[in-house]
Structures are given as structure tokens and as C-alpha cells.
């Protein structure tokens, strides 16, 4: 999942609607502009049905847990499902970048992957979502008209398209349904 401006609120909404015991890992990149996402994770955690933690390098992405990319690093997923970090150049002016996460996850998970792009002010995530679709994964984009900041979901729709373009409130029910299949 990726988002930036308006992302905290959007994440709180989505995470509060997820089914407890969801059998898949969730991984989030949110451009927060802060140096440390500890507080961000705590704030999201209070309204989430699933535990929210900062992703740690070398740890596996756990089912039923929401893992959030640390500040200042790109977050990647390896083929064995563990996290790794990078301090390479910013992508779409961002580090962590949604594109970097999505592209690595697409290689790692292929058809077993759902990518979600929500509210945000730049086009980070558009190429990443295209990569997810190219590898047979499913793309969900928040309806730009429904988003606090429409640039990010609009860019994703323009470049990658989507399997589902829905308002924020519909994302959690959709994820619950997809994860059952």
C-alpha cells in the first residue's frame, strides 16, 4: 500500500475495516516527512484491527501484520519474503518510495500480490503499480475524486490503470474479500 498527503487518515480508515486474522502480510509506504515513524505507527495502530509495526530489515513479512517502511530508507521485499533496505537515490523525490517497494514485491510475489495506491501529492507508485499488474497482481486505486490529494491515485490510473477504482471506505471490504480467495 502506498500513500502520501492525507495518508495517515486514509490508512486509519482502511486498517480499521480489515478482518482480524487476515492471512496475508500488509506492507505500507507512506511519505510522512518525519525522521522517525515510531509515532506514526503508534497513531495508526490505535485504530487498526491488525498490529502495526515498523518493518525491520531481514525480518519476514508476517501474515496479519501491517509493516511500515522506516523513514529515510527504501523498503524492499526479497523473494524469500524478508525485508531489505536501501539508501539509493530518491525515486519520485521520495525515500521510502512506493515504486521501489512495489517493484520488488512484484518480482517476489507476482500473482499473489495486491497493490493499493491511495491519496497523495506526487506520482510515486504509478510505475510500481504497473509492475504489479505486469506480473499478474491486482491493482486497487482510491478514486481520485474521493482522495484528500488526487495526484497520486490519478497518476496511478493514468500509467497503470486499475482492477478496482473505489472510494476509501470500499478498500477494506474489498481487501477482506480478495484475501479470502
Amino acid at each position, binding site marked *: 500500500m502506498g500513500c502520501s498527503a492525507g495518508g495517515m487518515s486514509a490508512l486509519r480508515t482502511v486498517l480499521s475495516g480489515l478482518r482480524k486474522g487476515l492471512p496475508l502480510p500488509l506492507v505500507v509506504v507512506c511519505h510522512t516527512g518525519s525522521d522517525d515513524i515510531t509515532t506514526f505507527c503508534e497513531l495508526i495502530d490505535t485504530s487498526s484491527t491488525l498490529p502495526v509495526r515498523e518493518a*525491520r*530489515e*531481514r*525480518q519476514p513479512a508476517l501474515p496479519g501484520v501491517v509493516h511500515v517502511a*522506516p523513514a*529515510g*530508507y*527504501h523498503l*524492499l*521485499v*526479497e*523473494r524469500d519474503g524478508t525485508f*531489505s*533496505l*536501501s*539508501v*539509493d*537515490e530518491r525515486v519520485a523525490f521520495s525515500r521510502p518510495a512506493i515504486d*521501489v517497494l512495489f*517493484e*520488488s514485491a*512484484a*518480482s*517476489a510475489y*507476482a500473482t499473489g500480490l495486491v497493490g493499493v495506491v491511495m491519496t497523495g501529492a506526487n506520482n510515486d507508485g504509478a510505475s510500481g503499480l504497473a509492475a504489479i499488474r*505486469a*506480473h*499478474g497482481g491486482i491493482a486497487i486505486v482510491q478514486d481520485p475524486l474521493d482522495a484528500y490529494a488526487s495526484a497520486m491515485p490519478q497518476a496511478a490510473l493514468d500509467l497503470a490503470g486499475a482492477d478496482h477504482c473505489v472510494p476509501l471506505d470500499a478498500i477494506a471490504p474489498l481487501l477482506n474479500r480478495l484475501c479470502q480467495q
Partner: protein
Amino acid sequence: MARAEVEDIEVELFARALQLRHGYDFSSYAPASFKRRVLNLAANAGCRTVIELTDRLLREDALVPQVIAGLSVPVSEMFRNPSAFRTLRDEVLPVLASYPLINIWQAGCAFGQEVYSLAILLEEAGLYDRSQIFATDISDAALVRAQEGIFPIRDARGYSDNYLAAGGRGSLSDYYHARYDFMKLDERLKRNVTFANHNLVCDGVFCEAHLILCRNVLIYFTNALQDRTLCLFRDSLVRNGFLCLGNRENIDFASAASAFTAVNARDRVYRRTGGAAS
């Protein structure tokens, strides 16, 4: 065959070619970021595919420095993660002050931002004159840049903010000259610095260090290579010597981690309290 699989094969062939032809072993680098760098290298070299890049790599020795530079992309800033430098200043330097001569190894110096930051820290603590700093990197191109100590002036403001947040005593501008679009760090900051090529994959112990800094290098290594490198650090440190890693690095999976005790876990500062060697 799905696109991703072909790309992964190409990246693997590239790594094999680099090893067989030029002797560089990247087989233990974390695959996801390594793949990204290889794809970027190919694009920057004007190659349509990684196979094309591999073909050139096998036939053009002159490409090697550019390849090594591209595989060890050095993104850094002075006093990056200021709280770590503050911890170095407050908790590490006072202990180092008890040694008559201080050896410091900065592994993975990239373009030098961290070395010059360290030099400034030592100067302000009055410890520079009895310190020897070894700044090493796998990339000769990076070492040349590090030796120059020249950075874009647009970065000065950010570096200065970091310097102050790290507890800098004066002004960062005390330590550089601005000229046109660049800032050049004072020559005197490197009078006790030796820049040298060192490859953490295959090179060994070369000094007895009181402090090793290696920040955001091990993140690009597999667990096995991270462990090997931590063993190397353990064997390169005096008893109770310090190791400083990047602020989100995780050594839980390394058996060599048992040789280290956290001094400041949040800032990833450790002391070598156990293990082999001296």
C-alpha cells in the same frame, strides 16, 4: 516465461561475468537492491538489456570502474542521522580519549561526507591530532571523490542543519570554503586520513581499530555476508572497541553479533566485548 524471471536470469549472468572476468564477487549482495542497481546501470550505460551490459562488461575492461561505482551507489550526507553523531561525541569519544593513539576505520566511505564529519567531531573534541582515520571503499571512483572533499553548495544548508543537530560547537562554514556552486572541505581535515581501496567481501584485517564506522553498507549484504563482515569487524577491533552501524540495521541474525554489546541500541553503537582475536 514471465518477464521477471528473464530479468533475474540476466542479473545473475551479469554477476557471474563480473566475477569470472574481473574477480568481483557480488553473489552475497542482497538480491532486490542489487537487481535495481544493475538495471539502472544498464539504463545509464545506454544498454537496452542487461545482457547487452554483460556483453560490454566482458569485452571492455574500461567499463569496470563505472560498473563498480554503479553497484555501490554512495548516497550520503554530512552528519547523517545527527543523533548518532551526538552519541559518538557524548558516549564514544570520551572513552577514546583515554588512548594515546586512536585508530578509526570508516568502512564504505563513499564520497567522504561521513569521514569529514568524523574529522570535525574529532577536532572539536581535541582528539584529531592523535587519531589516524582509515577511510576505505570498494570503488576507486568514490575514493577519488572522497579525497577531493568537494560537494554541491546546495547541500550545505542541510549539512549545516545536521551538524548543529549533532551538537556542533561552531558553524559548519568554519570548515569549508564556498566557491561558485561548490563547498570544499578544508585540507587540514584530512591530514590524518588515509584513503584506501578495501572490499569487505574478500579483504581482511588491516589495522587494529578503536572505532569502526560502517553505516548503511551492511544493508546491501545477505545475512551470510553481513555475518562475515561483523566477524571481520570483531577481529579488527581492540577489546572494548566501538562499532557504529546505520540507524535501522539489524544484526539479530548474525552469529558474530554475540561478540558485541549495545552501548546505544537506538543509534546502533556497540562495543566489542567478546569473541576471538585479541
